[in-house]
């Protein structure tokens, strides 16, 4: 066990910090769940890509930097430290990208990965359907083979980033006679294909963070299938592991929120008194614990290990921590907790909480945090997985 960074790692941190300080937009971007904000974020991704920081741990050939996962953790720390924008293509860079690396053909890697890294193509997820939520094996949307194409019929829902994205990945039933986990295939679908209709859905926060997507005889070439026909479930489980586990929820995000929570408490300590102090400190400790566990996981992966069902432990921990941090912040804000940001987010808000752009929007963050225990497999599903796959308890009926 050696918990010191190497000189090369320190140098990389300094380099990333300098680049980010020089390039992170001074003014906040609009939310990427608005059309304008979406394109602003895509422009930021282009800038990251040009700087060589879009996909730190990816091979250079696919638009990455060829760094290892430790350097990726360091980069993430610097990224959140710098207050850089959210990653609009997170579905592509953190979920689909690693999935294509594992299951894609050389041609698929060459076709898709560079455009994911540059965010020339931004991705939406297509898992859930109206009748397939937690019970994902109940998927009905099907893809009928017709020569060199699949013909897609059916509906996906809660497609994150679906409102403005270019492509969607998801599972479709390619064997009409199949049931449950069998007969599903993982397909990559252009959202501008004829027969695809996207209907944005406003979320709890008011913006269209996800969409319903309808398929009416949309044709998708067979080469857009990842892995074998009928292998969809296996591929999707790997993707879900990336989502629950390491990549999407890098610890720096929660450490940053914890740091901001501490600052908020210090600012309001005179008014709120001691009552919330322990809650604030516990949030900080848990964010640290999450970071430490991630370093352990990365050390294990660098030694040849794989992400397994323990991703379910991660998912519960970070999602509940995120809710708790935002709840605590709202309790500190007291009566001001109910205030929405000023309509023009770049203008100083008329609230004593201060200029909206200089501080986190705790209310919006709270609403977003509430989605954490739901998406990427509800925390109830994660607890089932932990109970059965990690603890070895009998299957629930």
């Amino acid at each position, binding site marked *: 066990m050696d918990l*010191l960074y190497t000189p090369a790692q320190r140098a990389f941190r300094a380099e990333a910090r300098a680049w980010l300080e020089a390039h992170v937009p001074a003014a906040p971007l609009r939310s990427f769940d608005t059309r304008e904000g979406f394109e602003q974020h895509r422009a930021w991704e282009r800038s990251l890509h040009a700087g060589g920081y879009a996909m730190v741990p990816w091979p250079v050939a696919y638009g990455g930097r060829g760094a290892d996962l430790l350097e990726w953790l*360091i980069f993430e720390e*610097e990224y959140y430290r710098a207050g850089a924008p959210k990653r609009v293509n997170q579905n592509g860079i953190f979920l689909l990208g690693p999935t294509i690396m594992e299951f894609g053909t050389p041609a698929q890697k060459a076709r898709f990965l560079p455009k994911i890294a540059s965010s020339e193509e931004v991705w939406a997820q297509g898992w859930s359907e109206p009748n397939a939520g937690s019970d994902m094996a109940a998927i009905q949307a099907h893809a009928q083979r017709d020569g060199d194409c699949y013909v897609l019929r059916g509906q996906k829902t809660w497609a994150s980033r679906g409102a403005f994205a270019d492509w969607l990945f998801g599972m479709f039933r390619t064997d009409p006679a199949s049931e449950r986990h069998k007969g599903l295939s993982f397909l990559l679908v252009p959202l501008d294909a004829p027969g695809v209709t996207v209907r944005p859905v406003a979320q709890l926060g008011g913006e269209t963070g996800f969409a319903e997507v309808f398929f009416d005889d949309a044709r998708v070439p067979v080469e857009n299938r990842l892995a074998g026909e009928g292998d969809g479930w296996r591929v999707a489980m790997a993707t879900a592991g990336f989502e629950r586990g390491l990549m999407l929820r890098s610890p720096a995000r929660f*450490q940053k929120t914890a740091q901001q929570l501490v600052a908020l408490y210090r600012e309001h300590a005179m008014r709120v008194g001691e009552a919330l102090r322990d809650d604030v*400190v516990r949030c900080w400790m*848990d964010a640290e614990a999450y970071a*430490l566990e991630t370093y352990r996981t990365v050390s294990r992966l660098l030694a040849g290990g794989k992400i397994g069902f323990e991703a379910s432990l991660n998912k519960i921990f970070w999602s509940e921590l995120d809710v708790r941090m935002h709840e605590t912040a709202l309790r500190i804000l007291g009566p001001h907790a109910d205030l929405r940001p000023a309509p023009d987010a770049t203008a100083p808000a008329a609230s004593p909480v201060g200029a909206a752009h200089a501080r986190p929007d705790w209310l919006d963050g709270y609403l977003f945090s509430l989605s954490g225990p739901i998406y990427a497999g509800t925390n109830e599903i994660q607890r089932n997985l932990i109970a059965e796959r990690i*603890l070895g*308890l*009998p299957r629930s009926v």
Partner: protein
Amino acid sequence: MRFAFRDDQLLLQSTVRDFLRKACPPAVVRRLWTDETGHDPALWAQLAELGVLGAVVPEAHGGLGLDERDLVLLLEETGRAALPLPVVATAAVAVPLLGELAETGAAGARLAGHWLPRIAAGDAIVAVGHPEDPFVTDAPVADLLLLAHGDELHAVERTAALRWVRHPANDPGRRLYTVAWQPRAETAVAAGAVAQRLLEAAFERGALACAAQLLGATEQMLDLAVAYAGQREQFGRPIGSFQAVQHPLADAKVQLEYARPVVYKAAWSVAARAASRGVDVSHAKLAAGAAGDFTARRALQVHGAIGYTWEQDLHLWMRRAWSLALDWGTAPRHLARVSAFVLADGAPIGPGHSFEGAG
């Protein structure tokens, strides 16, 4: 940067685990509960032979020459076994304390040279009387007592002049005593700032050792609850197939697995004498203590009424977890230290700072 144990460290851990499973089953713990001295010389000798007692004793003094990064895994196993012997005070606290005393001068070096080989050989038990703790655990069986007195540290050999009073504890494996003794000039081994520094280091090591034992005890309670839930049937099926039983145990697993890296990091910090070690140790004790308490409650609930009996073994670890949470600094004591760090002006917190105190 590599946050992982080496294979040889894990091998030593599993050797100790296998040994304790056979040598310290619940029947042995219960026998020691009612034993007059609470001590088991044969088991103690075997622990010495395995290297547990001399793990951090330098090789020159007959030990393994390891440090806290290794010891943490062995202590985890003693927690898993609910081993009611004074391993924390002797092997985790007194050994490094004697080592540090050796660096303070010729008298300290003589003291360390005398006792360290005996500890490693299993021929000596050391009790520690620390200002943070009103009790001196296992005082009557100790051959040497390292006792704080004002701003002095004394090394007192067992003599007829020592008198102690036992205070029965909730965990019968925990032997709490207050000790009456006369400090004399010739027993003083450190004073002033030196004694202060040594006692602070002892506090970190004691708290770290408790946190490590808590990890083992917590995992054991979870294992017991999982095993029971898989075998106990109600409504025609194992109760472990009910989500109402599964989910609290899944939550306990989450708490345990997020306490673990905190304890391991603290072990590294103590071994490396990192600037962050005080906060790291306090965080470790809090996280492991919370996981232990949470798991004890869930494991008891899963067992139901049978778990509420004296006969069922679950409470061996519940009592251990509760007492470990009190030893070497209670939760409020440790939380105050973390608070002081986190809420200070210019505290080095936020992304990128996790290992800063190490550098």
